[in-house]
């Protein structure tokens, strides 16, 4: 039906293992922070020869079943606000459609390089502002010694919660307050637009829930999985209607990511809430450098700067991809380490409790 449908890559054992592995690490991170992995998976698939749109579509088709499993797991821990997730998810869906439309227009007007430049610039701007702020906030919490105390809504969130617009107010469990949907709709829309643009809506959705709505980090990252499910399902259907999903790739990635997401979700029960911000902020800031490296490549392809040499392009591309993989691995390492320490502390506490009990 579409020429893209003829571009299915051959799968060998190495490719399968690679997709499984990246899926696992991506799943681990998204189980913990609510999103992630896509920024490596999409270019990762493209590096295997999968056309860009098919990579985005196949990534989306693994995302929604993964998010479903992850959100169900975290729901058991009392971390999910389904209502907030659905409300934001529906508006995110609109954002995805709008974002995809912009992408198509840019691609039609400026070709692949134009589209890639737009994606990279969006990455750099969003990650620099939001990622920098998230990391700064996590650092502030760590330094203040308040890492163990309950998170409080910030000034902006308090203001948002104080605005009463009759007929639009909805109570959300995650926030424990009524908020106007006139605030949630643009946030969901922005999340969707980011998902369609940089493939990781959560980089906007989670910080928005924390800083604009006042949700605790654990609730925000868990609720993001509901948004990812709603958004991913709609997005996958849209892409599948154009025959762009390579179900083999999606399911192989899913195979690894379902192992990861279960682990990442469990990890959240062991850590202090600010760790969500640490992992998210660290990944965002590192990915920022990765995408930043690609900006000159696309500028040169568009003829906006002097043409770069083939070797330079190759070095920049490989470095960019390596940095992205490093970001994901570092995120996974922090999650596993935090989980390991949490488990150790729990065991010690349990042993001390048993000893005390025995003495009485």
């Amino acid at each position, binding site marked *: 039906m579409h020429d893209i449908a003829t571009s299915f890559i051959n799968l060998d054992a190495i490719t399968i293992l690679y997709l499984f592995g990246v899926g696992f690490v991506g799943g681990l991170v998204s189980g913990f922070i609510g999103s992630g992995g896509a920024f490596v998976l999409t270019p990762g698939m493209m590096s295997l020869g999968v056309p860009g749109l098919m990579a985005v579509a196949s990534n989306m088709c693994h995302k929604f079943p993964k998010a479903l499993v992850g959100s169900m797991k975290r729901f058991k821990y009392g971390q999910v606000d389904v209502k907030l997730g659905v409300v934001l998810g529906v508006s995110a869906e609109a954002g995805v459609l709008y974002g995809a439309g912009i992408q198509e227009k840019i691609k039609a007007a400026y070709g692949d390089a134009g589209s890639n430049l737009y994606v990279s610039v969006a990455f750099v701007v969003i990650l620099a502002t939001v990622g920098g702020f998230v990391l700064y906030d996590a650092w502030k919490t760590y330094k203040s010694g308040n890492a163990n105390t309950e998170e409080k809504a910030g000034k902006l969130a308090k203001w948002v919660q104080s605005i009463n617009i009759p007929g639009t107010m909805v109570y959300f469990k995650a926030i424990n307050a009524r908020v106007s949907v006139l605030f949630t709709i643009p946030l969901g829309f922005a999340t969707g637009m980011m998902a369609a643009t940089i493939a990781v809506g959560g980089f906007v959705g989670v910080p928005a829930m924390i800083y604009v709505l006042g949700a605790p980090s654990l609730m925000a990252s868990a609720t993001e999985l509901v948004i990812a499910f709603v958004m991913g399902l709609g997005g*996958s*259907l849209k892409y599948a209607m154009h025959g762009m999903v390579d*179900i*083999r790739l999606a*399911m192989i990635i899913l195979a690894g990511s379902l192992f990861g997401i279960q682990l990442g979700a469990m990890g959240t*029960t062991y850590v202090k809430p600010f760790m969500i911000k640490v992992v998210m902020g660290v990944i965002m800031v590192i990915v920022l450098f990765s995408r930043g490296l690609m900006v000159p490549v696309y500028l040169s392809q568009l003829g906006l700067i002097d043409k770069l040499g083939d070797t330079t392009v190759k070095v920049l591309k490989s470095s960019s991809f390596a940095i992205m993989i490093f970001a994901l691995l570092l995120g996974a390492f922090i999650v596993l380490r935090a989980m390991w320490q949490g488990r150790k502390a729990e065991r010690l506490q349990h042993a001390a409790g048993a000893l005390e009990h025995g003495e009485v």
Partner: protein
Amino acid sequence: MATNSTKKKPVGKMLVMGLISLALYALLLAKQDVVNSTFAKGGWYAFLPIITAFVFSFVHGSFTGDFWTVLGVEAARKKKEVK
């Protein structure tokens, strides 16, 4: 190793779901030519990849959940709700 020694581990369920999952993946890869040509037809055929994703997530999700439980990796017990 296990954090919860009182609960019985779901070894049987894990094995059953693991085998079904393996069979699904084997089928998907063995019939990949047919799958590729049918699933990418677009239009109403779009529901095929979506249904497949749901089926795999149910079977493989159940398997992976039990897999970690059997290995003794479970959520922290005291924190039921974290705010």
